[in-house]
């Protein structure tokens, strides 16, 4: 139903009063913008009234048009003026205390053990290694026998094993993954096997009954001990820096022959000798060696055709070296004050 011109003009006057009331109480640029939209926006009051022009007779239109334009002008002037005032006394360039800390979305922390594990995986992946995994619940066969550790052999004393019902055990190392991988594939093989391991050790600052290992295995034609040295040297330098040195010492593992323990130059003193490395300049990492012919026998590889090397690595130990953490139990306590340091 069309409205009479008088009614519209009355309403317009009321709106003008309303606007005056609003503009006096505006105290921020955003409130000012809201007011602008309410009156001059695409669906604003003034715009809506301009639409009414079409409902009036041609005689009445100029009057309303004039009033509307005047009203629109007033609004624009008032908005400009208040905008200027707001800017000059406060507003955009006014005083504000900027010393409270900035705010952000806190993302979660990653246990440093996982960080180091991820880093180790990235390094070996970049060197062309694949990643294999295996079960934590193992059989005697995979954990010992196929690794050339027969029952009734004193080498079993080297690892205190947790046994489970039904003849199962908790793997004492990630080496069973070597066997599982070789069983299902033919050389060349170039893998790492990260995972959780278990040994019947009472927890203290350097021992944990649950720990993580990264096993490595390379099998191909012409693989030598020199390649083992090169691989672990490359790893040490990628993880700890270009000054790292690696030392290999003869040792004994039933699944490697020759066997070697390997040490990294001490990260605490750069190999100069300190309390941590007992003045030797070296920190013991873990065991390694050339895959024993007996192990190839179990998986049906021809020892005359292929040779290979394997190594183990304790992730906790590496993480402790990297972040200079003094107690292995920190990894498993998950104290927020520990986690938020990494």
């Amino acid at each position, binding site marked *: 139903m069309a409205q009479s011109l008088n009614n519209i003009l009355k309403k317009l006057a009321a709106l003008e009063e309303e606007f005056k009331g609003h503009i006096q109480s505006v105290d921020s640029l955003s409130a000012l913008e809201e007011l602008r939209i309410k009156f001059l926006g695409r669906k604003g009051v003034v715009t809506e009234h301009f639409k009414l022009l079409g409902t009036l007779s041609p005689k009445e239109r100029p009057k309303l048009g004039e009033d509307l334009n005047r009203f629109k002008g007033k609004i624009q002037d008032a908005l400009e003026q208040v905008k200027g005032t707001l800017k000059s006394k406060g507003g955009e360039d006014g005083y504000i205390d900027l010393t*409270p*800390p900035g705010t952000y979305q*806190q*993302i*979660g*922390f*990653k246990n440093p053990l*996982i960080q180091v594990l*991820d880093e180790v995986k990235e390094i070996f992946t970049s*060197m*062309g*290694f*694949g990643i294999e995994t295996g*079960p*934590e*619940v193992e059989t005697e066969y995979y954990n010992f026998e196929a690794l050339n550790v027969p029952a*009734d*052999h*004193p*080498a079993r004393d080297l690892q205190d094993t*947790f*046994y*489970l*019902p039904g003849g*199962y055990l908790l793997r004492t190392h990630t080496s069973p993954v070597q066997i599982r991988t070789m069983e299902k594939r033919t050389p*060349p093989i*170039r893998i790492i096997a990260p995972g*959780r391991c*278990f040994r*019947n050790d009472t927890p203290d600052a350097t021992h944990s*009954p*649950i720990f993580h290992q990264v096993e490595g295995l390379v099998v*191909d034609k012409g693989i*030598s*001990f*020199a*390649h083992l*040295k*090169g*691989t672990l*040297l*490359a790893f040490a330098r990628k993880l700890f820096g270009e000054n790292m040195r690696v*030392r*290999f*010492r*003869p*040792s*004994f593992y039933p699944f490697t*022959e*020759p066997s070697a*323990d390997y040490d990294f130059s001490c990260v605490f003193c750069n190999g100069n000798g300190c309390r941590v490395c007992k003045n030797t300049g070296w920190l013991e990492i873990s065991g390694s060696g*050339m895959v*024993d*012919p007996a192990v190839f026998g179990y998986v049906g590889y021809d020892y005359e055709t292929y040779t290979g090397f394997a190594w183990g690595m304790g992730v906790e130990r590496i993480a402790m070296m990297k972040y200079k953490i003094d107690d292995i139990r920190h990894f*498993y*306590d*998950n*104290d*927020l*004050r520990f986690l938020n340091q990494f």
Partner: protein
Amino acid sequence: MKVTYNWLKSYTDFTFTPAALVNTLTMLGLEVESIADQAWDFDGVVVGEVIRKERHWNADHLWVCDVKIGRRNLTIVCGAPNVAVGQKVAVAQEGTRLASGRVIERTSIRGVVSNGMLCSEAELGLSDRGEGILVLNDDIKLGTKLIDVLGGRDIYMDIFITPNRPDCLGVMGIAREIAALADRPLKRPKIRLKEQGRRISGFIKISIKNPDKCPRYTARFIGNVNVQPSPWWLIQKLEAAGLRSINNVVDVTNYVMLETGQPLHAFDYDLLKRKQIVVKTAKPGEEFTTLDNRIHKLNAECLMICDGERPVAIGGIMGGFNSEVSENTKNILLESAYFNPVNIRRTSKYLGISTESSRRFERGVDPNGALYALDRAAQLIAELAGGKVASGFVDVYPKPIKPLKLTLRLQRAELLVGTKIPASQIRSILPRLGLQILSQKGGNFKIEVPTFRPDITREADLIEEVARVFGFDNVPADSAAVIDLLTPANRLEQFSRHVQDTLLANGLSQVVTYSLLNKKEAGLFAEGRRVVELVNPISADLSTLRPSLLPGLLKAVKWNLNRSNPDLKFFETGAVFEMSGKKVVENRKLAAVATGAAATPTWKVRPAAVDIYDVKGFVEHLLRRNNITRWNFIPFSCSYATTKTLSIEIENRKLGTVGEIRSEVLEQLDIEQPVFFFELDFDLLYQKTNWQRTFSAVPKFPPVTRDIAIVLKDTVTAENVAADIKRHGGAYLQNLNLFDVYIGKQIGSDHKSLAYRLTFYSTERTLTDEEVDTQMKLILDSLRNTFAARLRE
């Protein structure tokens, strides 16, 4: 194996300093685990001679002695019963500090001034013997420092012997390694044995019934021994090796074992019935008392050394109480045998006895070293206990074990080690280790392996020997590699990382918790599954494998709550375990817990407490990030979760649960604030993850948004409302967002208000207000009709 620097040096002339020796041994594979200086401290103790001895005028039990030290004479008051004129003795002069910390002063003893002290072994810290003074050899020059008489300062070393090297469980074996590296001869003590009297066959008959378990048994008879405490030098050696001194006869058997690696046993001959030794397996269930006075129940595998009537020792493991050498022993039967390593190992495990002897036999003693050790011990017993060694010896050795012959190909060694090894090196290295080169044809060596190296049975073992002495340090590091560029990407690994990153971005911290729990904790989350208990746990607290990741996560929560960290969000991925029939089943899970404030409180924002919608959101976000589009939440509860819990299904397979932990369960874990959780099947999530992402056009035309707030009965679910809106939203309703839920006075009881923002757009044109209004009317009409909803004013 505990040894000393000087002890090693007595078998080979090396020039290494102690520090260099430690490094040398370590680089040979004999890792020195610790070294320590000898605690001896008697700088002011010198050798003197007693030249006069008179009874103290004022004390019956004291002597006043004149002791000559070089050119000086000292008057010293002494209470030792054994002091005698002409003895060479250890004199502690004024100012000397003894092992006990006592400092010797010039003092008056009952009116006679004493200018020092004549020392006993105990006072010098050499042994426990304190009843008389130490009497030294006659040929020592007066005034010599005692420390020099004892061979100078010594260094104790503890060497880790790997299980493959039984030969290095004897000091001579370690010395052989050093000699090989230093290219010096090994000095084996020469046997100087004086046999006398009747032949041994007149004293004992020996037979072996189980030659597979005891391939060799040798023995000697020593008569008329005088069993007494050992001299200090012998006690010193035993103590350096961590053994306790018993008496001179037993100590000699132990000493020769430490020297050669061959365990020996001495029987009191007069306690052996019928003068027979029969080596045979035990009767099952038979009981036997070992010399430590413990009773053992035997099985049919236990190999016993028996006399004519009964067992007198567990072969290779421990002697019997019934034939032990004591102070009263007059005649000795000395045994040096070779036992089968596997059988020793089994018996030792079965009986729970591990001894110096069993440790060596189970690793493999040299079967052809038995006689040398036997003779060496017989000689020392004769020297120290004054016995007479009967002529001859018994040697029952039905099938002599011969040295192995192996071929070593130089080419193979070079391939395995990865460097050129001159043939001359092999000719030099192997013989030094006792590996005899029988012949060489080109690069092929025929090698005879001595029986003291049971670890060398294959060519690879020989190559290890070459590499070890050649030096691992001399092998270059070869960092060239041939890699297969077609190595497939590890999807599971990528997936794990993706999950990890998504949850970390949601503010959850990634933790690592123990897989072992106490049974009670595990039981709280077992939900009717049978938990897996360890056969041999360390403790009750670490006795059961986790059936769920939740108890471990809750323990991490508790640890932090106890340390005033109240706002926690943790997740973990890992294996959980349960029994299925007789099998142990392992499954991978992804779980999280959240408690306290939903976000970090700041001066700008005071976040609400975590609730079910937060953990539900973690899961939904994770699913969406894994490009999974359809899933169902179904109301759920269980023994550890309240009714504020949902089960989540994908294509009718249960992915997991998300909800709230029951307060009764939290109480048992000492947690006093609400904890929300989710636990998902990691492998199912991996399987359902959709790796394929396909582009859909980015809208070119502006969207139209409409907000509506409706009031309806509070029993109507938001899920049903949303479904209804979507059903009537038409082709252009692209997004529906519930942005407010209100329950309260303004709308009356039993009602709630839901506010939605609807976004419409077309990919082909700009929508008109009229079109959208029409669609909104349809939606509202349906909501009114279906749910009796009304628009909120």
